[in-house]
């Protein structure tokens, strides 16, 4: 049994006490003395040329302190794309500058072109309404196929056909893949949409710029998943503030799901306004601004083909995808549909030949970027849907077609045809576990019970894999990343033995404060209660890359373990000195340093105290203090994998789909806190069910967002999801990080959408509606009914 606060214990989340009692400190909760309030003026048209912006009347209104427009930022840098992706013909990526405030043109509804700073929110709003912008509306480019076909109407005047890049992966394999298709006994073809999602973090974005005229230091409080990255972007690219003159603080953050990875113009604007006014400037987004201006997720239109033997053996797979990047390149917009998507198109299968083509397309819509799962849900959905469809066409059992093609447990490390090396896994084991846990054998009985109640029951499977623990810097660098993806930790043992761990990861709901403390506690043999995890403040933490891509424990956690191991090594030195023994004879166990074979020992606390009261240290060989830092750059991605089963009931008269059960058998490697892992899976599957059944981001032909509030954008609620059955007992420990962990944050959102849609199609097929081969997400009642009656 694990100790109740060590590795493997379901320790309750210490941060929940403050979150659940209203004592969290979010950016909007921070009020600085003398702060002014910023309101952004946003475009009401999707596409337009800005002729002039008259701010005179607004500037004269009560309480107004400053008004800035795009022109004020015309000379500063642009917010860059973090990843270079070349086209398959070698053409360079089209990279329009992303301004702080729109200048020259507005490019989507919600594109901010001015900011008003006033004493109060109401005054700022009044003045914002008085700004007169003369904007000539241009035809909106909304649909990707139209965007590509129309050479004259351009989101960015300099980018023909609105194509950012046309990427092939792996281009050299294309001919072989096409040849395999030409001679294949069976080809299944599916066209599908991966629906655009609005992230909807519970906490809307917020930023406070705070310039200190005395020291000329800037502080930015902001809703960020990665404060150091935000600082780097603002310093090096956008405002040119020296990095050492800018502190970025991401305090408690209420969810991100990817949308708070990126640097947004509002952050730069409040900093610049604060400098101009010598006062703190605060902005808090309203929910409608979140809908219009947070980076959205997904939005792929894909044609996928699977070539098979008649017995169901996969021969080759190819896809053509158009990925919407919206009006501007958000920081990871270019990698999400490419290297986080194309490299996963082998899935957990032995498919020998795979080719992926992705065109990234600019449209007059909000920017699109990574959202929980980022590229991998899109890959998984396409693969798992086409596998089901092939099974139907070839009349092969859905479990059997998967089992036949899964990579064998004895085949690792496994090199895929799309450039990854899976270090370890056992996909048959999770599939077997799923069959048992989900009682797949009992399905027919449950289906007849449903039938007795007038409902069609369906079973949908998904066997999935993801690449997490982003990422080996050398590998991603070779693939075009403009950043390294290591992480960092500093472990500071205080004189009295309490410990502060400064981590480059950022917790915005994940529970790092609890889990990271568990890991350190286990390693050092001291209670977790004497360990604090510090994150989110660039003036306190080492340079790390933040949290996304299920990387926190696998990468930042590994850095932390490395730093803890350095503490132990240093502790041994100190112990050797104190105990007058050789360093090689010191062993560390259960929080005690002892001399092997003797009863001479010092506790961890005694060592810590001595480190700061070094009265008789041999200073040439032993430094005082007990503080160590480590950087960790992973050797490979981690590859969590699993098998999911969803059962739905469909009311054929209304098209209503109810999720009757959802079972997950996951392999996350070693599990540090089972309760938190389960919570992450629950949340991820909930989001996946949301994508599959409810969430629909819809722009009309003029580029107006039709689903710009919760009146029309359907979020999953507790009543939309079942009680989940989740299991993570099938463990193959990651081979290349010290904890053997793989990451669990995105799994649910990656694996679940195809299971849900597969279940709905299965229910309809079993119910005799055999003409229904596919329904695009969200599988709404209206769409199901139309499919049945179509």
């Amino acid at each position, binding site marked *: 049994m694990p100790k109740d606060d060590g590795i493997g214990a379901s320790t309750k989340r210490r941060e929940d006490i403050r979150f659940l009692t209203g004592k969290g400190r979010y950016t909007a909760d921070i009020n600085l003395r003398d702060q002014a309030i910023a309101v952004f003026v946003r475009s009401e048209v999707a596409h337009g040329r800005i002729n002039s912006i008259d701010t005179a009347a607004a500037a004269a209104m009560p309480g107004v302190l400053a008004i800035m427009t795009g022109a004020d930022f015309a000379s500063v840098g642009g917010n860059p794309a973090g990843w270079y992706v070349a086209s398959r013909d070698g053409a360079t990526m089209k990279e329009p500058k992303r301004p702080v405030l729109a200048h020259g043109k507005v490019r989507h509804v919600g594109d901010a072109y001015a900011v008003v700073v006033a004493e109060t929110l109401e005054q700022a709003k009044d003045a914002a309404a008085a700004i007169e912008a003369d904007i000539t509306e241009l035809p909106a480019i909304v649909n990707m196929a139209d965007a590509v076909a129309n050479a004259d109407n351009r989101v960015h005047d300099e980018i023909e056909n609105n194509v950012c890049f046309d990427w092939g992966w792996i281009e050299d394999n294309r001919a072989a893949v096409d040849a395999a298709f030409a001679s294949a006994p069976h080809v299944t073809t599916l066209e599908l949409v991966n629906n655009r999602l609005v992230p909807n973090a519970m906490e809307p974005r917020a930023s406070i710029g705070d310039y200190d005229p005395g020291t000329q230091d800037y502080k930015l409080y902001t809703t960020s998943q990665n404060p150091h990255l935000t600082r780097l972007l603002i310093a090096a690219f956008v405002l040119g503030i020296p990095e050492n003159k800018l502190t970025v603080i991401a305090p408690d953050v209420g969810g991100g799901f990817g949308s708070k990875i990126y640097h947004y113009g509002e952050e730069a604007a409040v900093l610049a306004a604060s400098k101009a006014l010598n006062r703190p400037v605060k902005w808090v987004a309203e929910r*409608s601004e979140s809908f219009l201006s947070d980076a959205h997720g997904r939005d792929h239109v894909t044609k996928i083909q699977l070539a098979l033997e008649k017995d169901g053996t996969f021969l080759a797979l190819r896809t053509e995808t158009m990925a919407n990047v919206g009006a501007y390149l958000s920081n990871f917009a270019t990698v999400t549909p490419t290297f986080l998507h194309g490299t996963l198109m082998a899935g957990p299968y032995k498919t020998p030949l795979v080719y992926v083509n992705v065109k990234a397309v600019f449209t007059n819509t909000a920017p699109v970027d990574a959202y929980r799962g980022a590229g991998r849900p899109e890959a998984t959905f396409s693969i798992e849907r086409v596998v089901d469809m092939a099974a139907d066409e070839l009349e092969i059992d859905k479990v059997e077609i998967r089992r036949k093609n899964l990579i064998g447990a004895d085949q690792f490390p496994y090199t895929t045809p799309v450039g990854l090396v899976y270090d370890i896994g056992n996909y048959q084991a999770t599939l077997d576990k799923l069959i048992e846990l989900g009682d797949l054998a009992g399905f027919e009985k449950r289906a007849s019970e449903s039938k007795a109640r007038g409902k069609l029951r369906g079973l949908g499977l998904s066997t999935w894999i993801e690449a997490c623990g982003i990422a080996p810097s050398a590998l991603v660098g070779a693939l075009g990343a403009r950043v390294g993806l290591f992480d960092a930790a500093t472990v500071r043992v205080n004189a009295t033995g309490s410990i502060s761990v400064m981590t480059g990861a950022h917790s915005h709901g994940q529970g790092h404060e609890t889990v990271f403390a568990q890991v350190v506690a286990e390693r050092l043999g001291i209670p977790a209660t004497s360990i604090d995890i510090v994150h989110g403040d660039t003036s306190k933490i080492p340079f790390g890359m933040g949290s996304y891509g299920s990387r926190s424990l696998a990468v930042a956690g590994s850095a932390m373990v490395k730093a803890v191991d350095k503490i132990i090594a240093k502790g041994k030195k100190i112990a050797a000195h104190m105990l007058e023994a050789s360093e090689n004879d010191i062993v560390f166990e259960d929080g005690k340093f002892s001399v092997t074979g003797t009863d001479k020992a010092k506790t961890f606390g005694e060592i810590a105290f001595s480190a700061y009261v070094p009265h008789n240290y041999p200073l040439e060989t032993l430094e005082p203090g007990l503080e160590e830092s480590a950087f960790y750059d992973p050797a490979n991605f981690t590859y969590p994998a699993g098998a999911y089963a969803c059962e739905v009931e469909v009311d054929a*008269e209304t098209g209503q789909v109810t999720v009757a059960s959802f079972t997950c058998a996951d392999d996350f490697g070693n599990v540090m806190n089972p309760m938190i892992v389960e919570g992450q899976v629950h949340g991820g599957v909930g989001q996946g069910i949301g994508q599959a059944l409810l969430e629909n981001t819809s722009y009309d032909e003029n580029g107006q967002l039709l689903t710009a509030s919760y*009146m*029309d954008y*359907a979020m999953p609620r507790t009543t939309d999801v079942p009680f989940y059955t989740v299991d993570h007992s099938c463990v193959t420990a990651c081979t290349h990080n010290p904890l053997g962990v793989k990451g669990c944050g995105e799994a649910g959102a990656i694996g679940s959408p195809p299971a849900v849609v597969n279940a709905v199609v299965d229910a309809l097929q079993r119910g005799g509606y055999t003409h229904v081969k596919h329904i695009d997400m969200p599988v*709404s009642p*209206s769409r199901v009914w*139309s499919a049945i009656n179509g």
Partner: protein
Amino acid sequence: MYNFEFVKPASIAEATAALESDGAQALSGGQTLLPTMKQRLAAPDVLVSLTGIAEMQGVCLGDVGLHIGAATPHAVVAREAAAHYPALAKLAGGIGDPAVRNRGTIGGSVANNDPAACYPSAVLASGATVVTNRRRIAADDYFQGLFTTALEEGEFITQVLFPIPQKAAYVKFNQPASRFALAAVFVAKFADGVRVAVTGASNGGVFRWAEAEAALSANFSADALAGLSVDADDMISDLHGTAAYRANLVKVLTGRAVSAA
């Protein structure tokens, strides 16, 4: 939100006087009006709260049947109408979430006449009487299309009087996002015939489905609806459902309401 004055009269007479001033608007539960004001889409100069008027509160039996004060929150109706008019209580208990049900009121809902709101279908199917500070209006004369009613300037609802049917049921199909009615049907069977009111579905707002009423008055069973249909041309088509889909829902839900009544 823009600035406004706030008054809270204690009687219908005082409220009538207050609502005569320019730019005055009635405020009941505020579940519709306040969000609109927060978005600066409405800017009344004076808000006249109707929630402090004793005669406009509560549920009781009276000469017409069940009399409900216009400022009675949905949660109170859900609780207090249950013994007398279960279908109406169930409708009230299915509106929004607990916060909405504890603030939002029947008067606000009936005055607003949102095409996707629940209450208008109950008022129309019950043949209820809408009582105002000036007159009594029969349900059939009261609803006049989307967000449009017979209420005049300065007129406000004080009570809604519901005849109690022999049998009734309300079946609502939620719009997936707002959980208002994508389509919903209230069926009420009285000694002298059946009334069927449909909300959520039509371009014209809440309406009575005359053919279904005739068929059900002759034979109160779901089978009686076979062969009937509402005209899809009159139905709303939006992201959440096509007109044909809503027409289908109207029929399916009517059948289910009859079975549940």
